[in-house]
């Protein structure tokens, strides 16, 4: 399986012949094998040139850039290497038809909230006081199918998310205080973890989309092209509970992430380098986790599940098979 490369040091990324090199004070000059690299995450301050960018493009490697605070700044998405005009037209058609768009958006929320519920249920078997949250989410989930517009659907989703977030403190045994989700900027450790994790998820999904014919700017739940590759936001919704939130719960509960892994500055809170490295390691491991896929009758990694989600969308868009979002079955 191809690797993701996480660069946390400062330095220079360059191309020499057919190899990538990372030069840094800490590690010296280190080669990065191109053949089994699919994406690179830049967290440090890195110099690079167009020779490198061209090389990444030739090798279909996506590059995700994060700023000093670990906030996502953007991606280098190389020229599409698997274009299908036919699919693009169909993808747009499904967006333009309100009914068709809502159908896909609902199924995404269906999957996302199923996975949210699954998390809360998992912890309600282990901790007191979560049953009430399970019930509230179950009740609110019933409204998904009745939503008449995207904004109604977003409303349902928002309410479910609020209930879910209010269960976080119980899930993490109050190790950190967490009242509200704030994003711009995150103001406490849990918000910092969620923001960081979500942007890692977003980037990962983007890389998977890149390896299919789907166009990342045409989405169904989120408004297309709102400054971002919005299809990646759509698909991320399904995976955030399965991957990001689970990582947060276990890192905090096992005390692998503690106060000292955060820096606070002017009312904002972010993971410091140590914290990021811990998170990345966990994230990488999680994506490599293998499970048996009942329909394929094959073992697949969690990362592959993201790809399969793209495939299912493709089949739906081609009117071949109705889209059914991934609902955690394990």
């Amino acid at each position: 399986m191809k690797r993701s490369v996480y660069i946390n040091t400062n330095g220079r990324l360059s191309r020499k012949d057919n190899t990538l090199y990372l030069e840094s004070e800490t590690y010296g000059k280190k080669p990065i094998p191109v053949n089994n690299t699919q994406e690179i995450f830049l967290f440090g301050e890195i110099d690079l040139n167009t020779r490198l960018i061209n090389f990444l493009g030739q090798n279909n490697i996506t590059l995700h850039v994060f700023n000093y605070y670990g906030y996502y700044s953007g991606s280098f998405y190389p020229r599409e290497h698997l274009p299908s005009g036919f699919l693009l037209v169909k993808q747009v058609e499904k967006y333009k038809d309100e009914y068709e768009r809502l159908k896909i958006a609902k199924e995404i929320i269906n999957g996302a909230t199923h996975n949210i519920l699954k998390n809360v249920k998992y912890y309600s078997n282990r901790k007191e006081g979560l049953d009430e949250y399970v019930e509230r989410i179950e009740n609110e989930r019933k409204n998904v199918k009745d939503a008449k517009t995207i904004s109604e659907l977003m409303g349902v989703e928002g309410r479910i998310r609020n209930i879910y977030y209010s269960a976080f403190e119980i899930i993490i045994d109050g190790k950190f205080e967490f009242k509200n989700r704030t994003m711009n900027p995150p103001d406490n450790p849990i918000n910092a973890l969620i923001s960081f994790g979500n942007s890692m998820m977003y980037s990962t999904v983007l890389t998977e989309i890149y390896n299919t014919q789907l166009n990342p700017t045409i989405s169904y739940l989120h408004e297309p092209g709102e400054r971002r590759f919005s299809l990646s936001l759509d698909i991320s919704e399904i995976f955030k509970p399965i991957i990001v939130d689970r990582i947060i719960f276990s890192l905090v509960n096992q005390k692998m992430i503690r106060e000292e892994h955060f820096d606070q500055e002017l009312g904002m809170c972010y993971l410091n380098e140590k914290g990021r490295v811990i998170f990345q390691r966990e994230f990488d491991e999680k994506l490599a986790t293998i499970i048996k896929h009942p329909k394929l009758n094959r073992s697949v990694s969690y990362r592959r599940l993201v790809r399969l989600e793209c495939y299912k969308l493709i089949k739906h868009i081609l009117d071949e098979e109705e889209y059914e979002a991934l609902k955690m079955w394990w």
Partner: protein
Amino acid sequence: MNLVTGTEINYYFVCKHKLWLFTHGINMEHNSDYVDIGNALHEKSFTREDKEILIDGRIKIDFVRNQLEIHETKKSKAMEEATKYQILYYIYYLKMKGVDGVTGVIHYMDNHSKEEITLREQNEEKIKQIIEEINKIKEMDKPPQKVKSKVCTKCSYYELCFC
């Protein structure tokens, strides 16, 4: 002449679903499982001096004394048919371009046997039919039935088809 590619001929025999996906630009990253000799033949003007064409680093065609040679490892009956007709199509194609009398040989690497391929009249008829059917499949707005057979497990579209 209504052109199709060798790959399309090949897929026609292996799986029409795959043929549809492929012709609609739905490719997998690693389409290593097909005999992609066609594209090269279409792109290059085929001259007698061309002695050897290596495509994908995997399939070698030697063009020696008006003979096409393909070295293939034996897969399944379906694959054999597919390869055979792919070669017949090249011979037919060359004939249309005015290169007459080309014959083909498939070398099966695993048991060292070989099969001689000559374009007969009934093959030509069949090829014309196949081309017509391929063009019909290309025009369909949805993919045709999946084959759901043994070939699926080795097909690069397996995950897409069955997830």
